[in-house]
């Protein structure tokens, strides 16, 4: 037995290290024009059939036998590079790739290399340029709304950025900006997402078969990498749209050493509306100054110490601000007068700062050390002052109120990439997150009095913070067992310590790919995920008061098992076709109990929620064309998502299963883009989805003991709203000018003015009749967005 074990260990060791005389080629793949590192570029030896991918830092490592090597370096949208070398020792080779002129624009690449060759399934990369070309509301490019067009990803309510991935809730998505979690990804209640497309380099969405390096959420991981900055010369982009203006600057600080990238976006309808708001104030004989705006600031500085060592500092801050200041003066007569002052501020937003050090320990081992700070806050303050003057007497009343909530994270993380040979890519690492939750603090100060004195009432409630520690360690291996069989397996071990309780979780992950032919593959995957925090929110409207709360002694962590399988086919290089089936079972989900009010949700929040289970299954079809003048995709999802809360004392819907709010049977999205030349491109989107569910009391009766008319609901989410569909179109006119390229973008949202349901409710009407009044009820649908044309101008230099 002992000998067998040693033999197995030796075999594994030989497999990992290789026994022949091997040498390692390593280096970085960059864009020639900007110097940006390219993520997931392919380096492939055409003689041995072995290859590697660049990691998140654009670095690769490929260990091959001594001798002649013909490398093919490729990246979608760039000219493929062929390089023949004689491998007689370890080498560092850096590649700078030129943009392709033959391939035209590429739209979506499902999976990292090619949808049918990668062992990874249920993952989607979207080039940022494609996101910018998708026509959207108010002409503002939006990452999350573009993702909502993909199979398996559902939007919530129209116009909102909420993402519902394979039956999961909006709080089950992990948003990583340069590897650091971001909590609130919405502006203006969800009409815009917090990601400024001008500052982004790469976007990858995982909706299942999660690699072991990710954890902390049940349903998806959105991994966003921001631009490092052009290392050759100063570039910029200025854009002015209907609601926002943006500026982006990037360039070298120290040639070949240090680069920067800064983007800033701000809405300005508060400035445009100021005259009207002041006029309203004047109509009331007072002064009024009010408005709303949001801004995003992304900044990144990258310094290269050597070819083996880089330091990256990145910063994101984004806030929404609502403000109002009013003042009214009035006089009753010559001896009496008064004044009223009111001010209100409502601010919410994120701040993320991180410092990351990349270091190549050996040609095969790469290390990433990250320290980060994240803060999400939500502050409301109101002040009111009233004075009444009569001769020399004065009566006054002053009130101040504030409400604060938020979460802060301090993160330390280390990650390693180890590529012992072309058949293995091993990733391992660990992290420690210290969470500081401040669910809510409410302060009230009242002061009233007159000349002779006054009384002050000062109260502060909820000034308590909850500290929690989240530990994580992982290891994963992407292993090419044979030419046709490849697996990605790993383990994620996490633990969460809160309120003296420790929740451990061991999460296995496994996915595999079997090539049936050169063009056809089948894949399957399993993942187990655990989540230690919940977001308390009104599931239909994304309010800034949605709060993040940790698991507690009473509320256990959520966890989910997901299995998926799929067939992937490459149609003669013209299009990729895929079909994926999935089944996901979720445990310890929380839902508001019947009648729970969303306001001040954190006050006794554990009493407002019940724990239960959910499951979702479905099939996702995707046909996409990525090369040529015409590009785009057609996606279709059939799915069913249910919830069941049947634990004793925590029953919802009498313990019976009920459809989730966003249970939709059919989702169709068609995205087409046409770019005949460099001066013009256009695109169109059509989406269709079954209506969301809602709860309507279909019956009423009278209770004669109270006289109350009782509304009777047979089951939760028993009503389905009308179907949703709309078409958007957009055109871009580009023209090269002396100092750059200007672009006029025109788009129309909801081209055929479909009145889609935002919400449906019962409306009671009262009509005057001869003998009195008559009451009637009707069902009314509220729609938000009619046809909305928009225009924007940008200049890129």
């Amino acid at each position, binding site marked *: 037995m002992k000998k067998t074990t040693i033999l197995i260990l030796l075999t594994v060791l030989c497999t990992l290290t290789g026994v022949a005389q091997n040498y390692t080629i390593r280096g970085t793949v960059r864009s020639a024009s900007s110097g940006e590192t390219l993520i997931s570029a392919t380096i492939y030896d055409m003689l041995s059939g072995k290859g590697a991918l660049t990691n998140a830092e654009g670095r690769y490592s490929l260990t091959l036998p001594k001798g002649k090597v013909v490398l093919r370096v490729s990246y979608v949208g760039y000219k493929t590079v062929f390089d023949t070398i004689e491998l007689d020792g370890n080498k560092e080779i850096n590649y700078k790739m030129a943009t392709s002129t033959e391939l035209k624009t590429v739209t979506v690449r499902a999976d990292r290399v090619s949808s049918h060759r990668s062992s990874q399934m249920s993952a989607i990369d979207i080039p940022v340029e494609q996101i910018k070309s998708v026509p959207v509301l108010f002409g503002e490019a939006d990452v999350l709304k573009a993702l909502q067009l993909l199979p398996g990803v559902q939007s919530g309510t129209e116009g909102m950025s909420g993402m519902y991935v394979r039956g999961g809730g909006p709080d089950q998505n992990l948003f990583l900006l340069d590897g650091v979690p971001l909590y609130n990804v919405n502006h*203006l209640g969800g009409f815009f997402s917090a990601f400024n497309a001008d500052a982004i380099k790469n976007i990858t969405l995982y909706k299942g078969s999660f690699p072991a390096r990710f954890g902390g959420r049940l349903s998806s991981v959105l991994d966003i990498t921001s631009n490092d900055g052009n290392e050759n010369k100063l570039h910029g982009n200025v854009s002015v749209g209907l609601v926002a203006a943006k500026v982006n600057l990037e360039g070298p600080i120290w040639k070949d050493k240090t680069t920067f990238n800064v983007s800033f976006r701000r809405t300005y309808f508060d400035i445009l509306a100021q005259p009207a708001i002041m006029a309203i104030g004047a109509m009331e004989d007072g002064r009024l100054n009010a408005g709303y705006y949001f801004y995003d600031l992304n900044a990144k500085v990258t310094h290269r110490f050597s070819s083996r060592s880089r330091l990256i500092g990145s910063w994101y801050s984004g806030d929404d601000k609502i403000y109002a200041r009013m003042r009214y003066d009035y006089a009753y007569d010559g001896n009496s007068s008064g004044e009223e002052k009111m001010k*209100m501020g409502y601010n919410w937003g994120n701040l993320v700062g991180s410092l990351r050090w990349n270091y190549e320990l050996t040609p095969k081992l790469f290390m990433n050390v990250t320290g980060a700070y994240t803060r999400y806050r939500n502050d409301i303050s*109101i002040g009111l002052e009233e004075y009444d003057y009569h001769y020399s007497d004065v009566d006054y009343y002053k*009130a101040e109120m504030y409400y604060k909530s938020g979460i802060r994270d301090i993160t330390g993380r280390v990650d390693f990439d180890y590529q012992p040979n072309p058949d293995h890519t091993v990733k391992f690492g660990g992290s420690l997150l210290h969470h500081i939750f401040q669910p809510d603090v409410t302060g*009230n100060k009242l002061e009233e009095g007159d000349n002779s004195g006054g009384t002050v009432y000062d109260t502060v409630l909820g000034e308590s913070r909850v500290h929690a520690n989240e530990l994580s360690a992982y290891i994963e291996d992407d292993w090419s067992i044979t030419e046709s069989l490849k697996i990605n397996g790993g383990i994620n071990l996490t633990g969460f310590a809160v309120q003296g309780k420790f929740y451990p979780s061991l999460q296995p992950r496994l996915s595999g790919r079997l090539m049936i032919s050169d063009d056809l593959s089948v894949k399957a995957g399993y993942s187990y995920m655990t989540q230690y925090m919940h977001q308390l929110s*009104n599931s239909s*409207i994304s*309010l800034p*008061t949605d709060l993040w709360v940790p698991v507690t002694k009473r509320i256990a962590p959520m966890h989910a098992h997901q299995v998926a399988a799929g067939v992937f086919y490459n149609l003669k290089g013209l299009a990729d076709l895929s079909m994926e089936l999935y089944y996901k079972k979720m445990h310890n989900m929380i*839902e*508001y109990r*019947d*009648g*729970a*009010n*969303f*306001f*001040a949700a954190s006050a*006794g929040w554990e*009493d*407002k929620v019940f724990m239960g289970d959910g499951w979702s299954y479905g099939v996702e079809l995707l046909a996409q064309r990525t090369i040529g003048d015409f590009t785009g995709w057609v996606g279709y999802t059939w799915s069913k998502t249910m919830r069941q809360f049947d634990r004793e004392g925590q029953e919802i819907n*009498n313990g019976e299963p009920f459809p989730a709010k966003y249970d939709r049977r059919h989702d169709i999205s068609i995205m087409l883009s046409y770019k005949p030349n460099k001066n013009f491109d256009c695109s169109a989107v059509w989406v269709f989805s079954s209506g969301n569910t809602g*709860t*309507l*009391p*279909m*019956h*009423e*009766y*009278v*209770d*004669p*003991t*109270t*006289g*109350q*008319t*009782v*509304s*009777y*609901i047979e089951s939760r989410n028993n009503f389905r709203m009308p179907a949703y569909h709309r078409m958007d179109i957009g055109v871009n006119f580009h023209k090269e000018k002396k100092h750059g390229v200007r672009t006029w973008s025109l788009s129309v949202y909801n081209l055929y003015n479909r*009145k889609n*349901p935002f919400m*449906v409710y*019962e409306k009671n009407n009262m009509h005057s009749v001869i*003998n*009195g*009044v008559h009451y*009637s*009820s*009707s*069902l*009314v*649908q*509220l*729609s*938000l*967005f*009619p046809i*909305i044309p928009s225009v924007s101008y940008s200049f890129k230099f």
Partner: protein
Amino acid sequence: MKTKTKMKRIHYILLAAVVLLGACEKPVDFDPGEVKPYVVMISKPVSDSLMSVYVGYSRFFLDNRSFGTVSDATVTLSDGTGSYTGVYDPRGFLLSGRHYYYTDGEYWMEDSVFYGGYTFTLRPQPGDTLRLTATVPGYDKEISATTTMPQMPEVEVLDLVVDTSEGNYYDEYGGYYGKGNYYYKVRFKVKSSGNDDYYSVSIKHASEYASGSGLTYWDTVNMRNVYFSVNDPLVNSHDLVDAIDGYDGSFYGNEMAFSSELFQNGEHEFTAIFSIWPDFDEFDYAQIPIRLEVRSLSKELYRYEQTSANAEYDSFDGLFSEPVQVICNIDGGIGVFGGATQKTYRTPQSRYGTFQHGDGYYFKKKRK
């Protein structure tokens, strides 16, 4: 309360701003298919009292026809020792309290409204298990329900005082009303049987004068509900019937229902504080009769009362809260059949006068 109301307003303003971005309403063509009405059966027997059973039909929620009472049903009650058939009485249920109605262009006030019901001569006792069945012509199912009358609540009234010190007043909607010189305090202790027990508490006061035999007295026939506050760490709105959130999250309503789970099925002392506004404008606060009613509820009645009250509350706040399903226990229909036992405590008579007439108390007018 002011702060809380303002917070709420801010949210409404925010939502309004969002909606105003482009909102438009349109009626929905709603085809629910065939929505068959349910037969509704409601009975809430109180121990040692005659009981009535309401049988009617539900209606589709967009239908505004009046609710019809079924007068030709066969309603049978059994208590294990025998069966009894209910007799239909068009005045089987007196809906107490006044209500206003509008006709001929004017508002009118009516003192009482009746609903038809099936009456029984049986007076159920604590511990009795009752089964109720009803067959309704044209309705293909027999409907039935069972309840067990709970034991009498174990209650000790500790205190009933009128405090003349200055205190805060709340109006009947829970809003801060102002300061005054009189408020009342009722202190009582409830002791559970050790199992899950369910209770409801209400407080009433006589509201107006009546005259008889040449004397003026407080009319206690039509007692008016008191809105009282219970600032108790165990109590929150989800455990209450007809609850209106008060300042600091305390209960403020005219009926409080709770489960002994709140105090681990042991005993707990509650303090209720309230003010009253009798119709008569010249009165002596100290002489107004007060009544405390404490009931033990069956579990089915408790859950029904809790959910139906929350459903009504939700209808005012529906946009920002989850809808409430009323929990019924009628097989084949909807409604409730749940029993209660009640103990009533009144203010000491000696304190309010020397002569009792009927159900009222004589008093002396407050001297000016």
